[in-house]
């Protein structure tokens, strides 16, 4: 019983320290600045961005693709590790679910920022046409948000009931809310049966939904004639890229939470070792599709395609391109093959490199293609031949990233980041196991 008490004490949500307050308020400041910039964009129009008729999509879209990709972490870790009976997943699944939910919610918001007429949002439903990939997105993103939420919520219910009891004296207000959200969970057999079944259904559902979401995102590009987008490789390429972005984000966030909440006893070196291997698998898969997407086409590239590839390999985007490929993909996959690098701090640094690489990778998918249309660019101001985000775009994009981090922060503040009930059960089982064996 004493064991259980320390467990509860370790895992129950805690108030922020000084650092937490500083962190949260800086996020809030970034968000407020971003909102001001967005309001300015609403008033003046998207002329405040550096997008123009040729570079007609910019970092709003690549940032959207990044969020969609990151949200894939829920499908990968939770569902796939669950179906493959990888029991080490317990302490990391909830963090993965939280990242997933935050990312997909932000994806929904980011895509609206790119719409020049958000006031006509309802037209997407009133005049919806099923043949447009955007309509597919309108269907799949809310579905993903709902399913990601349920995937977080269902396993959380027993823990909420525990927290209700735990906070009874300490904070009646919190206790009341945990009580409401725990839906009168008593832990009875009937309740457990329903819960287990629901989780199972959602965990299986999230896999096709995750795959469809990533693929539709890829189809936004591959349904056009554009060089660099018009590729049958796109669907699988995006799925594997999402695998990288998601696991990279997971590693980074886990490291920070582990340090701040002092969860070294729960998220152990074993988890980092496993996640490190997982990240290598992700990076190698993505590398394979990158070779399919960029290297092999060189052999049969038509003139336009060759210009596009040249621009990436040796031209204007080459530095960024190779930084992303080498720094965000090749080096991580080589380094993480060695056990001594699959330790928390090196993993955190590599995870960060992977996430930043993933973000810029989307920029490289969106921008260069748009600046190489079939027709020559003539009769427009010189500045329209290039694209680099404006201050408005940066401020708004930073705000969306901050918002995602804020959602994660708030959820981490009020929810047990490691499933209490499950951990207790598993430890119990472990003990029983030892007892019977000895």
């Amino acid at each position: 019983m004493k064991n259980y008490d320390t467990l509860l004490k370790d895992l129950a949500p805690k108030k922020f320290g000084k650092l937490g307050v500083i962190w949260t308020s800086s996020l809030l400041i970034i968000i407020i600045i971003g909102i001001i910039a967005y309001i300015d964009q609403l008033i003046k129009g998207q002329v405040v961005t550096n997008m123009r008729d040729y570079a007609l999509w910019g970092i709003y879209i690549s940032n959207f693709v990044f969020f969609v990709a990151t949200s894939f972490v829920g499908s990968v870790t939770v569902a796939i590790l669950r179906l493959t009976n990888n029991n080490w997943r317990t302490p990391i699944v909830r963090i993965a679910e939280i990242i997933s939910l935050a990312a997909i919610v932000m994806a929904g918001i980011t895509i609206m920022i790119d719409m020049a007429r958000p006031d006509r949002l309802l037209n997407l439903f009133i005049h919806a046409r099923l043949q447009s990939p955007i309509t597919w997105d309108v269907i799949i993103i809310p579905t993903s948000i709902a399913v990601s939420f349920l995937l977080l919520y269902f396993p959380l219910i027993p823990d909420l009931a525990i927290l209700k009891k735990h906070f009874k004296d300490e904070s009646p207000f919190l206790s009341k809310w945990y009580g409401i959200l725990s839906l009168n969970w008593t832990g009875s057999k009937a309740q457990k049966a329903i819960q287990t079944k629901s989780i199972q259904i959602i965990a299986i559902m999230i896999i096709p939904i995750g795959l469809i979401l990533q693929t539709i995102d890829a189809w936004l590009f591959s349904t056009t004639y554009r060089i660099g987008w018009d590729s049958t490789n796109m669907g699988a390429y995006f799925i594997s890229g999402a695998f990288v972005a998601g696991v990279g984000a997971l590693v980074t966030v886990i490291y920070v939470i582990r340090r701040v909440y002092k969860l070294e006893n729960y998220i152990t070196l074993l988890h980092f070792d496993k996640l490190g291997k997982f990240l290598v698998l992700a990076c190698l898969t993505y590398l394979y599709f990158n070779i399919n997407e960029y290297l092999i086409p060189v052999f049969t590239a038509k003139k336009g395609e060759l210009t596009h590839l040249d621009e990436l390999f040796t031209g204007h985007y080459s530095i960024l391109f190779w930084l992303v490929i080498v720094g965000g993909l090749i080096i991580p996959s080589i380094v993480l093959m060695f056990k001594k690098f699959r330790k928390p701090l090196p993993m955190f640094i590599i995870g960060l490199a992977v996430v930043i690489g993933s973000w810029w990778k989307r920029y490289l998918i969106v921008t260069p293609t748009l600046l190489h249309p079939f027709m020559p660019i003539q009769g427009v101001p010189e500045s329209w031949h290039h694209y680099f985000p404006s201050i408005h775009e940066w401020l708004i994009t930073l705000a969306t990233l901050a918002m995602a981090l804020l959602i994660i922060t708030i959820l981490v503040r009020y929810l047990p980041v490691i499933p209490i009930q499950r951990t207790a059960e598993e430890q119990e089982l472990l003990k029983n196991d030892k007892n019977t064996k000895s």
Partner: protein
Amino acid sequence: MKNKNTTSRRKFLDKGLKVGLITAIGGIGLTKLASKLSAQTDKDSGEKMELMTTDGTIIQVDSSEVVEMDHHTKEDHLNHDVREGIPNRKFVMVIDLAKCKNALKCQVACNKHHYITGDNAWLKVYKMQESQDTSPYWMPTTCMHCDKPACVTVCPVDATFKRKDGLVLIDNERCIGCRFCMAACPYATRVFNWSEPNQGEITLAMDMGEEMHSTPEHAGLPSIKGTVDKCDFCPHAIQDGELPHCVTACPNGVFYFGDKYEDTVTNGDETLRLSKLLKDKSGYRLMEGLGTDPSVYYLPPVDRLVNFEDGLEHYTEFQSVEKPE
């Protein structure tokens, strides 16, 4: 007992109704069929008429088959559904590259009549050269009004649409500004209103409180912030029995406009058979390989009447809309 009675009566009524309905439908169908069958024998008058087809052969047709054709009346042009288009018409354009010397009168006229004041004209005259060894030429482009328009396919709200008369138009009151159509168009013909358009007299009139409703049939009147614009093939001019502004403005007769069903195109000076023109002068369409089926045809720049160099004088690489001083 009483209960049973009512249910059986209900059943009877129900059945009776169904049988009656089927008989009625069947009866109507049979009479229709019968009338169709009899009509053919009835109408054949035995009188033959001689007619000439468009390619010059004489054919004989039973006089009962000959029906007077409706002429395209002005009424037709005025009273049509904006999304359906003008009935029984299929508009096409032919651009003769042999005649173009980049006089840019087309662009100026287009900019003027559509109140284009942004930085990107809807009608462009590209300086083209396929490779270093081949001859350069001037190539005016409008919207291609494709029969399989990529832009229409990807539009999520049906704001851009294809009409039966061939035009691809935009409903600026519906467009949500996602710019997917611009990404989809391989001809880079679409232009976005990144800010509140300042359209000179139009904006002035609107500021004075005059109500203006944008119509797909006269793009740019007015342009709307956050929506897409492009060449509309000037249905507002067609309705008045006039040619698109670029056609009438061109001093060199580069643009021919017409109707594919009537197989004629005109540049204002001469009216030609479309099929013959395309055959004789090896007409082609831009990026035919993509399968977009454009409504704009090009005649290759051979046997040129003009010097390419003459056009350089008007060529501005970074400007297509003249700015007021």
